[in-house]
Structures are given as C-alpha cells and as structure tokens.
C-alpha cells in the first residue's frame, strides 16, 4: 500500500470525506454505547436532546462553547501561520489572573471603562506568554511545541501558588480560590433573564474579526503566506519573523480572552479548575474547523454540545460520560484521516 497525491481534489472528496468522517464517528460511538449496554440510537438522541433539547440545555451549550471559540480561534490563527501554539491553556489562565487582579477592586471604574480595560490587559498578558516561546523560536530555533506545552504546567503551578497566597480570598474559608469580582467587572447577560453572558457575543465578534484579518488585511495575507510556504515568503521579502511575532500576539490574546470571559462572565472568581482543558480542546476545535475562523464557531458548538449532551445522557442512560471524550477523539482522528484522504489516494500494489 502507498499514498499518491491527488492533483486536483474533487468537491466530492473535499466535502464528502469530512462528512463521512463525522458519520463514522457517530457509528463508532453507537457501537461503544451498545457495548456499554445501551440502545445506540437512544444514546445519540439523548446527547442531542441533552445539548440542544431545551432552552436551558441550549444556553448551557452556548456557555460551554464560549471559551472553546476563543481557544479554537487562538489555535487556528497560530496554526494557519504554522506557529504551533499548544499553550492556549497557559494563556487562558494568565488572562484569568489579570481579570481577577484588576476586577476585584483594584480599579474602581464604571463597567463601560473597566471591562474593556481588563479585556485588553488580559489579552496583552496572554500575548506576552506566547511571545516568549515565539521569540525563542525565531531567534534560536527552539521548538515551540515543546516550550508552549511545558509552559502550561509552569503557569498552572504559578496560578496554584497565587491562589494559595497573593490572590487567596480572605473570606474563602481556606479554599484555594480568589476573591469575587466587583459588579462592574462582571460581563452582563446578553438577554435579560437568559443565562448567557456577553462573553459569547465577544467570541462571535472575535471570530468575525479574525476572519476579516485573514482575508482582508495585509497582515492576514502575510500570515497565510508564511504558513503555506515559509521559503517562498522569505524570498518574496515578507518579514517572516515579524509576522510570526504578530501572529503570536493575536493568538495569545485570543486565548487569554477565554480566561477573561470565563471569570468575568461565568464564574465570578478564579479557581484552579476554571478550565477543564479548554486550551487543549481548542486544538481539536481548530482542527475540526480546518482552521477556518468561522468554522471554529460551528466546531466549538459541536464539541460543547457533545460534552453537555453526554452529561445528561449519562444520567439518563447510565453510559459513562467518558463517551464524550472518546467521541471527540474519534471525530478528530477521523477528520485528520479525511483531510489526508482529500489530498492523497491510497493505492494497493
């Protein structure tokens, strides 16, 4: 067996294969549900119902999708320029820390001034966190996959230290938890009476902005050129390292917004479990979206739906929620396979 490149993939290949990948994921998940002793179709139905079946469920899914849109965008932006940012988790936590530092009374400003200030400060902090590995890459050729990945653990331990010390809530009965944000630092709800905060709106706007940057601006053109062919970009006079630095600023900033949005929109304070791996799941989201910023929104909703739906499915059908993790892993693997098969065909000799 060997792979041969496909010169000009047909529409059937480029659209059909990813669709087939999702279908394959569903079939495989059904089989697993059967093994767990449940009716496969009822399990899938329960997941869909649990994710979108009621107003409450749908809002929960949107809330869950919000940080995934931010981290998905962060990864998509970076990967598009072939900057392998595996550190969205760290950038998210740094954004959350800045939100707590500025939002717990340090700045007693009205909301219309305070919220943008915090958001921008969080983005800057997240950008700096990615800037260090990017600088090491452009200057010394240090592999950013390793540095960004390891920084996740460094930052998580640092946050843990802060929550046991400088940022520890004096009224928190000894729990490793920050003080609560002041009211002016909380993101308001998008619609009165519905449990959905403006973080979601900000995420949608961000997706649109990233799309415009990539398609319409000079920087976006440079980022795509660098990602597709660094050698040709350098030859043409595109300042490759500068472009990578700018990409890092954007990517790190977007990931930090996830932390800002979770703390200011949803939780109101910082704990060490504020992210159940949103930074890593963002990689899955970005890959499923084929790095398209608008596709990231759809992919984030899909992923969030599976998580939220699996929770309620688990309660109703008695199938472990781990099924959600397996489904995501399957979807990613199948999608990667599908992407490869749009570009190569398998030949048997």
């Amino acid at each position, binding site marked *: 067996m060997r792979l*041969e490149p*496909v*010169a*000009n993939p047909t529409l059937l290949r480029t659209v059909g294969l990813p669709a087939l990948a999702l279908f394959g994921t569903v079939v495989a998940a059904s089989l697993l549900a059967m093994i767990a002793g449940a009716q496969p179709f009822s399990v899938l139905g329960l997941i869909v119902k649990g994710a979108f079946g009621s107003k409450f469920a749908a809002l929960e899914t949107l809330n869950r999708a919000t940080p995934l849109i931010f981290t998905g965008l962060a990864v998509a932006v970076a990967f598009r320029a072939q900057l392998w940012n595996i550190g969205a988790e760290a950038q998210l936590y740094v954004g959350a820390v800045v939100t707590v530092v500025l939002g717990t009374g340090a700045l007693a400003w009205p909301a219309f001034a305070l919220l943008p200030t915090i958001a921008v400060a969080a983005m800057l902090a997240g950008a700096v966190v990615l800037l260090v590995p990017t600088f090491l890459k452009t200057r010394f050729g240090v592999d950013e996959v390793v540095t960004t990945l390891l920084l996740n653990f460094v930052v998580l331990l640092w946050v843990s230290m802060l929550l046991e010390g400088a940022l520890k809530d004096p009224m928190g009965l000894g729990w490793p938890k920050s003080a609560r944000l002041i009211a002016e630092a909380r993101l308001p709800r998008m619609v009165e009476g519905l449990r959905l905060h403006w973080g979601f709106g900000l995420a949608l706007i961000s997706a649109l902005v990233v799309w415009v940057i990539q398609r*319409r*601006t*000079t*920087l*976006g*053109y*440079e980022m*795509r*050129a660098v990602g*597709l*062919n660094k*050698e*040709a*970009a*350098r*030859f*043409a*006079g*595109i*300042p490759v390292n500068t472009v990578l630095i700018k990409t890092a600023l954007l990517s790190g900033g977007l990931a930090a917004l996830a932390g800002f949005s979770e703390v200011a929109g949803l939780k109101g304070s910082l704990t060490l479990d504020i992210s159940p791996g949103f930074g890593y799941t963002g990689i899955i989201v970005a890959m499923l979206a084929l790095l398209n910023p608008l596709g990231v929104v759809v992919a984030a909703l899909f992923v969030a739906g599976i998580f939220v739906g699996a929770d309620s499915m688990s309660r109703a059908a008695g199938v472990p929620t781990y099924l959600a993790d397996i489904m995501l892993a399957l979807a990613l693997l199948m999608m990667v396979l599908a992407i490869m098969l749009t570009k190569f065909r398998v*030949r048997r*000799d």
Partner: protein
Amino acid sequence: MTKTDEAQVVLRLSSITKRFGKLTANDAISFDLAKGEVIALLGENGAGKTTLMNILFGHYTADEGEVEVFGQRLPPGQPKAALQAGVGMVHQHFTLADNMTVLENIVLGTEPLWRMGFGRSAARRRILALVEDYGLRVDPDATVGSLTVGERQRVEILKALYRDARILILDEPTAVLTPQETEDLFATMRKAVAHGLSVIFISHKLHEVTAISSRVVVLRHGKLVAEARTADVDRHQLAQMMVGAEVPPPAVREAAPGEVLVALEGVSTPDRGAAPGLKSANMALRGGQIIGLAGVSGNGQAALADLIGGLIAPASGRLRLKDGVPSDWNPRAALAAGIARIPEDRHKTGTIADFDLTENAVLELYAKPPFSRRGWMDWGAARDFTQKVIERYDVRCPGAETRIRLLSGGNMQKLILGRVLETAPDVVLANQPVRGLDIGALTYVHEQLLAARDRGAAVLLISEDLDEITALSDVIHVISEGRLSPAFGRGELTTAELGVWMAGHGFEGETHAA
C-alpha cells in the same frame, strides 16, 4: 519503425500507461531494447521519460501494460525484482552514502551485513577489474564525500555493473557533467555496449543523442511519437519530433552596453553544506547586456543568486549598486533597488502552491499601494494587476482565482515573469529560467529576457545548459567552486575552452595544474 530481432530482445515495454489524476504521464508506450544497443530516450522535460523509467525499475506501478526482461515478465512495483533481472539504474540524484568509501558503497546491499569485510579483497579485485574494463577511473578506497560529481556518477555506474546489470538506465547523466566528463561517460557507454550490455540513455540534448545512440525513441506529452535509427535522422528532425514544431533559433542582436548597475567587488559568502559559497568574486552587471553564468551545477550559482536576490549579504567584499553600497541587504532592499528575481525553483521559492494566481502575482508587491493601504489589502487592484499579467504574458489558466499548483510549469513561469517584469526592473536575475519548460514557453521566456535587455536592463542568466548561455549571453562568466572567471565576450571562447574553465582550470591561485 525499426524491427528488432526477437532473439536479441533484452527488454520489452508493452503499452505502458500511467496516469496521475487527469494527467496521462505515459500513454500506451511500447518499445524493445536489443542486446548491445544504446537507445536514447528523448523528450522535453515533462514528456514522461523519468516516469517510464521509474515504472521499468519498479518505483511506480503502471496502470496498464507490462515490462519483460529477458523474456520474463517483471512483477510491477518491485525494484528488487528489476535489480535481480539485471536492470541497473543511475538516477539524476545519486544514492550514495557520503561517509563511506567507494568500495563500501558498491558492496552495500549485495552482502548480508554480518559478512561485510569478509569478501573485501575479492570485492576489490572485481571492482578494479570493472574500473579497468569500463574506463571508470575512481579509487575504491576514497571516501565518497571527497569525490567530484563526475566521480560519484562513475561509482553509481560501478554499483550497477557490480550487481551484474545487463541493462543500464542512465537518467539525464550529462546534466551534472562538464563537456569533457561527458566524453568520458560516452567512452564508458561504448565499452559497455562492446561487453554486450544494453543502455537506455535519457536526455534532451540533441548533440549527445546523435553522438552516442544507435536508436532514438522520442516521447512527447506522454506518447511515443517517433522511433528511428539515429543514423537516419539529423538533429533538426529530432528537434521537430521532440517539440512537434519548428524550433526557431533565438534572434540575438548586438547589445549596446550601459552603465554598471550591480557590481561585486571581491565578494565572499559562506559555504552551505556541499555547495560552495563565493570566493572573492568580481563581476559587473551592465545595463543592456545579458550576462551568462556558465558552470556545472552546485558550484556556487546558488550563492550568487541568493546574494544578488537579497537573501544573503556578503561575508566580505562589497556589493555595489548604482547609488552606492546598500547598508541593509535583504529581499525587500533588492526589490527596492530594481532587481527582479526569477528563482531557480518556481514551485518552492517562486510561488505558493495553494495561493491563487492573484495572491501569487502580488507576492513581492503586496506591501505597497495600490495593493495595500494602511494595512488593508485591495484585492480589486490585485486582481486587475493579475489580469494584466495574465493577458500580457499569455498565462493560460482558467482564471485569476485558480490555485497556482494547477498550472503547468510554463504558465507558472510566465506568471512569475510577468510579476517581475511589469515593474520595469533595472536588473533581472534569471536563475534557470527555462528549466522544465516546453519549447513554446522556453522561446517566450528567452524573448522576454532579450526584450528586457533591449530596454536597457542588465540580465544575469544562470543556467546549466551551456548552449543556452552561449546563444543568449553578451558576456559570459564561468563559475567553479565558488570562483568566478573573468568576463568573456560573445564568441570569445569555444565550447571546449569554456569546458576547461567549468572543470576548474585557469582560475587565479589555482593549485593543481591545468
């Protein structure tokens, strides 16, 4: 058509067809190879020669048809079976281990690893016998890394002979050789034929084909278009068969040299791996001239191209432009100085395969108005520009929004040509500008370079094809191991004399005798 005596047939290709997507690289190709003959497989780049040989050798599997060697059908897709059947192939790119000796390289793979060293003296005796019989001068104990390109090629041929090859396939063997080395290779081929071997010699150089082959098989666009006894055809007819049309000779008028636009003053650049950098090179690029750079590939051409293109700066010496020595030297500075660059590798360096024509057309110009204003791209202006290039430079494509990877090499090159020439540059750096192009595109590129010269631009033409250099250039420099020869005027040196320079003789400070 010639008929080969059945008993003498050593290799038979029967209606070999190979498709890559929509492209049919080989279309029902059949021919026989007889014992003791040299067949020249002639065709332009992209005609399907290499694909056919890769099928024969088992690197590719044919979609249809079969290969017979000595009457036995070869199982498809198995290089090992081809080797055992007595087929030896010398690729364009050598497959030798640099850190091992010639002997080790030759024996490698023929004996189990744990027996290495056992048959060493026997192996040496056999190799020396082969060296003697075939005139393949090379020291069995030399490390391959220290050998010249010509010597490495001999090692490859020895490797095939050591494995008892009865059929030798040489894929464009002369592309890396000086004229003198080519003569040596031909002598070896004649000896091989005298020993009863059969040779398939792949080339697109007509004078070589007529010099060495007994029969020619001509491929065009994947089809076998002609098969003839070499004695029955002349070069002119061969050229016509190859391209399917009359080949117009480039009409070159005398040039009026202008002022010096770029000057190299004792420039040296660092070596890069096996490729030498420049060694205190002096050169002047004058307006209104085509300056040809002759040389065997890998002798510092890349360093010179990168230097003038702005990708590297001199390590010592000076690069002087019309208005002085630039303080900062990079691709943007080169573009700003009016240097247009046609890169050697149009796929990897010249274009971005997954960008469309528009995005590729503005690759060097995007940062300035009208294409970009205050950080925003004006895709309308970019499309207009691309449309203009497509029309003026005859780029055949479905439209400006086509991804450039779908274009043929010739059309890709025309887009690059249009992109750089539309800016009316002072200097044109043309690095292998016609490599892999069909005759139509080739002629077009040459015409455009001549037009740029007539407009007053300095054109630096880098090519491995000596005929191209001598036909077009007003001034010729030869490069060897990073050293530049003095400038020679048109017709000042014969091909043989150029060959002597290409082989590295005649340079200042030379250590070995010429």
